[in-house]
């Protein structure tokens, strides 16, 4: 089993709040829907560039969408 990343995100909740589908968001940031699902489920850590694109798609900051717990 692959160890999940410690970086968590609230993409799914934010997307639901905005009434955006996975397909819409995936198209907006230029990834496949499967990649977006993997990111939402913590099975893939997006690149910094993609993380910024996701945050920008919702009009929020990186910190609002992603969280990295301290030690």
């Amino acid at each position, binding site marked *: *089993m*692959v*160890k*999940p*990343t410690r970086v968590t995100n609230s993409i799914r909740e934010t997307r639901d709040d905005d009434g955006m589908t996975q*397909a819409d968001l995936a*198209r907006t940031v*230029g*990834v*496949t*829907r*499967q*990649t977006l699902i*993997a990111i939402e*489920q*913590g*099975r*893939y*850590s*997006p*690149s910094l560039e*993609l993380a910024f694109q996701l945050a920008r798609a919702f009009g929020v900051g990186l910190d609002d969408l992603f969280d990295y717990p301290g030690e």
Partner: protein
Amino acid sequence: MVYEERNAWAGLIVSIIAVTVYVVVVVQQAGGGPLVEVDWVPIMLWIIGGGIVVTIVVSILWGIIAGMRDPDGVGKSDQRDRDIAHMSTRVGQAFLVIAGLGVIVLCAVQADWFWIAQTMFFGFALSSIIGGVASVIAYRRGLV
């Protein structure tokens, strides 16, 4: 299933089948005699050439079928696909290095050409199979 994952599955399945067919044909040709006397060159060339062609055909046919269900996803690849491809290449490369070292050792002991060629062939095959397995695991379980 995304385009690149389909390609990874197609490559993996064809590699496993091709290696199996190669081993079966070579053993059959030997007919219980010494393996080094088998005329392995045409068999290996057919297996390599056939494997490449079948992988391409399977990918195209699978793509056509998948495209009927999801026209938007056909031929699309993204950062995750590239990350998984890099990871599987790194995993597979280890076996090429082992095969390369094996070939040097076999040359040093002046082994029969048969064994030198088989070592390199199985190095490529293992590299492809293990890299393919790493790819499909990353697609299914995740890459973090």
